[in-house]
């Protein structure tokens, strides 16, 4: 088992944690945290792939870009969460569903 494989398996693990969070969590802030974990799995995978393929610079710069974009997403998401809390008085996503099947 090479280093790359181990690191990639770690990335998949982090991905799994993020997805599990998205599926199970109901608090909006928790969901945003889960999204962040999901994104960090991608960052990890990029860095590992960059090293393994020899394009270290490319992998790391892409990782930094993802971190920046991800931060923006987190900011917007949190701002939305604040608004949701103010207007609806709750952060439970079940309560946000207005579509009735």
């Amino acid at each position, binding site marked *: 088992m090479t280093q790359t494989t181990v690191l990639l398996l770690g990335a998949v693990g982090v991905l799994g944690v993020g*997805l599990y969070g*998205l*599926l*199970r*969590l*109901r608090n909006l802030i928790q*969901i945003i945290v889960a999204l962040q974990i999901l994104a960090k799995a991608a960052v990890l995978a990029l860095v590992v792939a960059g090293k393994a393929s020899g394009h270290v610079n490319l992998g790391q710069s892409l990782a930094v870009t993802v971190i920046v974009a991800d931060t923006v997403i987190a900011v917007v998401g949190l701002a939305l969460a604040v608004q949701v809390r103010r207007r609806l008085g709750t952060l439970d*996503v*079940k309560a*946000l*569903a*207005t*579509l*009735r*099947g």
Partner: protein
Amino acid sequence: MDALQKLMFNFFPLLFLFPLAGLLLNVANGRFWHKPIAGIIASSAAGLSFVVAILQWVALLRQPDGTVIILGTWLQVGTLNVPFAFQVDTLSVTMMLVVTGIGTLIHLYAIGYMYGDPGVTRFFVYLNLFLVAMLLLVSAANYPLLFVGWEGVGLCSYLLIGFWFDRGEGGTGNANAGRKAFVVNRVGDLGLILAMGLLFWQLGTLTFDDVFAQATAVFPVGSPLIVAITLLLLLGAAGKSAQIPLFIWLPDAMAGPTPVSALIHAATMVTAGIYLIARSHVLFALAPVSQTAVSLIGASTALLAATIATAQFDIKRVLAYSTISQLGFMVAAIGMGAYVAGIFHLITHAFFKALLFLAAGSVIHGLEHGGHSDPVTLQDMGQMGGLRQRMPITFAVYLVGALALAGIPPLAGFFSKDEILAAAWQANRAVYIMLTLAAFATAFYMGRQVWLVFMGEARSETAVSAHESPPIMTIPLLILAALAIVGGGLNLPGVHTLGHWLGHTLGHGELLSFNATVALTATLLALLAVGLAYWLYGRHPLGAAATDPLTQRLGPLFVLFNQGWWVNEMVEWGIKRPFCHLSTVLAHSDEAIFAWAERQLVHTVQRGTAVLRRTQTGQLNWNVAGIIVGLLLIWLLLRFS
């Protein structure tokens, strides 16, 4: 073509542009103006158009072979090329002069007749629109453009019959009359469209000159195709010119204002069918069977309608059946190849029938202003009588028109009718006998009408209080009366001015020589018929409650004539009712089959969506699960495909 002639042909588009400008002015500004201005604008437009028509006539005098004026491309699809092309030749210019000349007089008359009507602006807009369409019809140089005019006049006819759409039987009578005219005309139009299709299929062109040049080469005389084409054209002509079996719309069309009856349903539009056949004379010459059919239909229409006219009581219905009958004369004439006689009668008929209608309008107008407004009693000849002292001008011109129509020499009708009878004498004795009988009936019903309306004593209070119409109405009447007197001079026997003139377009055939026997017979019969009318209605003027003496003399025949041979009922029971029943059945089967299937489809879809709808919960977690499953599926697909 010399320069001056060219210059005059350059004015041709103005023929349409004047009425078009008139109607646009009235449409745009009609509601701001004092009402009579609409009539003055429309009349000036018609008058200027007449001046343009005269210019075209003068231009043709210099070189009578005519020309084709192309103003642009209209349709160019594949091999079909239909330009905005106009035929200026002796036939079309003759029609233009009749349409704009009579049209101008009727416009002027209508200013007086429609004075005070709230819809007068709309009336004159329609009237100008009619002029545009009619001029398009008579000057088009190809069948599709002619068809545009053909439909245009049909539309105007519909609009004007239903002009007082809130009047008539049950408040919708007039509107229904307009619809009837429109629908019956569609039957004829079908014939015209199919004829055009066959012509294009066989010849690849629809331009008059090309069609006529190629037809003689392509179709052998009497070949089934040319017979079919000409019979279809005849169907079209029968619809527009009110021939058997499509004449039933014309009597109902009298619901329109009287100037409309005079212009559209007597002088111009209804002659479009005659014009169509005369224009297509090259095609008819190739199909002797169709020619015989044309003359037989014309002659039987002439006789049938003349008998119906003898037993009508509505002053305008008499004239309507008389118009059908006279159109029958024209159709019979052109069916026998006597095109000049047919067109000659078309012109003189336009003079005296427009005169009669306008004079009848003057009578109605005079009665109406006596304080009564029920149109049924206003037009009932049984309620009239003794109008000669109260309406002297109207009486005088009516007498002129009636004598001209009856064919008393030397008035216009005598010459034109005599030419048709002389042609029939040579061509077909059966047609001759039918036409002579029709002429006899014509003289009789006109005599009956004159005595019932103008002679004797007033038979109702309305008739007592009648008064003469204003000069704006009587002056056009006097002009038309003058034309009805001298109109025969257009084509005197032996001189044949019109014959030579139209010969440039219709071919210089054998000019009919004057047939003294035929002329004498016709005149004597006409005098006899007038005498008979005097004997029945003149000797002992009818009292206020007296029944028509004809009722006893003719017995059941009178009922037959009065009811118009029940042709209307035959169409009602033979065609309209079965058609309505068929429609009902089809509507129900549509409901039972297709609408049912449609509803089943809707239910199935709704049931399916009811299941799918449950998956749309709006829950974030559920959506994420959906995304993950979707991604997995895509991955699997890419992995194992």
